[in-house]
């Protein structure tokens, strides 16, 4: 190596076993006029920055800038989301309550300052994955302290070697701009597009977030996991793999009010089902004074508000307010319906307006209402005229009697 011409071999490096010797060598080289390129050591040698003539790093400014960016981002996001995008009063606090925003602001400031300054260090010092490390002395990460410098014009390598040996150098060698070094720089060049992509990523994120400002609230967003939107709804009599007894419905807790052992109705809503009910179901109750009075009580409470006390639609609540008129119960259409069908409509609702009352009125009472409707129809049969209310039925709600 040493026989090669000195024109390309203008750099050398010397290694020492001790940081003080390295510091001395650097000072000496500077004195003698050798331009020091850099030093390499297993740990930072104090005083070396001054000896080489390095200025203090400007990274603290990057740290401050990133910190301020974090601060602005945090405040901006919190104020925009809490007060503008989805204003929601929480705990009676103002929409923009700065004291409550301080913790998140602080955390994001620290986060961005920290990540930003480390990222800046990586960029400034070219720290990135490298499979061929440039200027690597094999012992530098162990116990060697290395200085690299240029040979002064006119000086010989032998002279340099002697100078270094005098300062305690373990070895001094010429540096060759060899192919390996070029390979390393080639790799770095290839890494540039990647670095560019990484740098552009935040900008892309910002661009991607812009459509947020102009959203169509009527359009449903994409959801990769429906979560609560699509619950698994079990039916009461479905089998269930992990519940006792293998089915969903469990023994009700103590104190539950009995529904008198009724089996569920085998009908669903709809006109076809209503017709089927009309064919299949029979009123289990016989006309009697007791059943009529119960039927009247329930009818007056739950049905009369719309259908009128006499089933003739003469209701002050619905028609007088111009709402859709309910069916006239004493009309021939209803009169010709079988009991089962009226019962079905009471339970599941009618084809257009009526809502099902199956959950509100017990099954027994619904049959008795059917009996009472038949009675109303009989009363209205000769001519549609109001029938005086029977005097022997008590009023459903306590009445003072003062206004009658």
């Amino acid at each position, binding site marked *: 190596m040493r026989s090669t011409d000195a024109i390309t071999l203008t750099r050398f490096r010397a290694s020492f*076993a001790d940081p003080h010797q390295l510091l001395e060598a650097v000072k000496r080289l500077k004195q003698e006029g050798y331009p020091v390129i850099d030093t*390499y050591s297993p740990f930072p040698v104090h005083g*070396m920055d001054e000896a080489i003539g390095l200025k203090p790093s400007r990274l603290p400014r990057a740290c401050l800038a990133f910190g301020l960016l974090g601060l602005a981002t945090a405040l901006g996001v919190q104020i925009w989301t809490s007060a503008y995008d989805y204003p929601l009063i929480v705990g009676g606090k103002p929409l923009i309550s700065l004291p409550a925003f301080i*913790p998140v602001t602080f955390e994001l400031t620290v986060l961005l300052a920290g990540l930003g300054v480390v990222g*800046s260090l990586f960029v400034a010092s070219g720290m990135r*994955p490298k499979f061929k490390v440039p200027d690597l002395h094999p012992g530098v*990460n162990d116990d060697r302290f290395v200085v690299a410098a240029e040979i002064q014009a006119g000086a010989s390598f032998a002279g340099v070697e002697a100078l270094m040996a005098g300062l305690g150098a373990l070895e001094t060698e010429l540096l060759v701009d060899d192919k390996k070094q070029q390979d390393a720089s080639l790799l770095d060049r290839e890494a540039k597009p990647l670095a560019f992509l990484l740098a552009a990523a935040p900008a892309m994120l910002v661009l991607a977030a812009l459509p947020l400002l102009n959203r169509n609230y009527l359009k449903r967003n994409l959801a990769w996991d429906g979560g609560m939107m699509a619950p698994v709804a079990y039916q009461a009599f479905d089998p269930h793999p992990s519940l006792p007894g293998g089915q969903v419905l469990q023994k009700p807790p103590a104190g539950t009010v009995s529904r008198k052992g009724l089996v569920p109705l085998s009908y669903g809503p709809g006109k076809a089902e209503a017709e089927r009910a009309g064919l299949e179901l029979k009123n289990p109750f016989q006309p009697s004074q007791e059943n009529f009075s119960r039927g009247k009580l329930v009818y007056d409470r739950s049905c009369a508000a719309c259908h009128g006390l006499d089933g003739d639609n003469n209701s002050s609540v619905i028609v007088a307010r111009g709402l859709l008129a309910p069916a006239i119960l004493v009309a021939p259409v209803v009169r010709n319906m079988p009991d089962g069908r009226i019962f079905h409509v009471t339970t599941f609702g009618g084809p257009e307006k009526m809502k099902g009352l199956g959950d509100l009125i017990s099954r027994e009472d619904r049959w008795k209402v059917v009996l009472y409707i038949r009675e109303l129809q009989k009363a209205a049969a000769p001519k549609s005229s109001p029938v005086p209310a029977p005097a022997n039925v008590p009023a459903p709600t306590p009445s003072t009697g003062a206004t009658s």
Partner: protein
Amino acid sequence: MAPENHTATLPTPLLVEDEQERGYGHVLPLIDGNKTYSQVTEEVFSTTERMPPLKWWLALSVSLSLFLLGAWAVTQTVTRGIGTWGLNRTVGWAFDITNFVFWVGIGHAGTLISAILFLFRQRWRTSINRAAEAMTIFAVMCAGTFPIIHMGRPWLAFWATPYPNTRGPLWVNFKSPLLWDVFAISTYFIISLTFWYLGMVPDLATMRDRAKTKIRKAIFSIFSLGWNGSNRTWSRYETVYMLLAGLSTPLVISVHTIVSMDFATSVIPGWHATIFPPYFVAGAVFSGFAMVLTLMIIARNVMDLEEYITVRHLEAMTKVIIATGMIVGMAYGTEFFMAWYSGNDFERYVFLNRALGPFKWAYWSMVTCNVVIPQLFWIRKVRTTPWMIFILSIFVNIGMWFERFVIIVTSLHRDYLPSSWAMYTPTFVEVAIFLGSFGLFFTCFLIFTRLLPVIAASEVKGVLKHEEH
């Protein structure tokens, strides 16, 4: 002290620290054994390059088993629901949040050692900071699992972050301390990880240079980021390290402050107190140092690191324990004074109930472990005897776990409505998750000790000062 270990060619490092000038009475060495730089390299890195000994495998199998037990319990919780826990309508937070606060607290010592002691130029930190930072990261991982499991549907944990969503978008509530927690813990985790990694880059380069196999070389080439020991890089690196230390110091204080606000901003008697932030931070440092001591005393024995983690390190940490333990003890007293001075019946009752109620065993265990037993550290013999420190550190760990349990459960189980008073008993599933978190912690720690350098070699070399010629 170990026998002198001179070599012919290399100058002998001396154990020098100028504490005597700063008024220290007795000085124990920072690093024992008169080591040379290459000895440090060899001793620190060779552990990562050979097969672990049998005792390591035994320890790993025990902690992996614990981890699997925890994994089973978490599966139970997720598939069968939170009903597998002993919580009820009155005590809605108990074991899970206790464990969360416990682990977050433990995490604090790592950053304290790496950041605050760095700023104060306490050079004894160099041989323990790597392991303490690793401990922080693993402890925060353990801590983070508890609130996530408590959510019931952990796969939706990302809902706690503000992102444009399908619900409006309905944003997270930035006025809630629980959300502050999300930000504080995740920032703390990310910054601690960055700090840990950055501090490790020079050592990773050493591992790369020592690597014998191609795969090993490739892996460490990626993570060592082309480190070549250049002074220009060192100069920037030190600046950034200092900045990160400066950022981490308020961060570590903010984290437990925010954790304490989960309680302090509520209206539950026993929680609603302005003393909470400093009280929690002191408690966190207290429990964190206890855990560092526990781990370090095991590590220095198992891995033959007595010359790196010396009695002097242990002694310095015991002093931190006395100081923070007394702050915590004073906080216990202050809480009682504030309850009495408030004139508030509910507040008074909660504190009487803590000391004399059905959970008094937990309260007095806490006082004994945290306030009484650490007083033994006033005796120098105790401070400098590793097995005694070890036992005392275990007591502090137990005591600090009880502190969180006492704060959380005794405040909740009897508050305003006597008709809603209830007791709390953990179920096996809850205990198993807690044990599982220890399994996770020790599994990570054991793998770390064999995969990466436990001692920050580049920093230790910096404190082996050479004899001036």
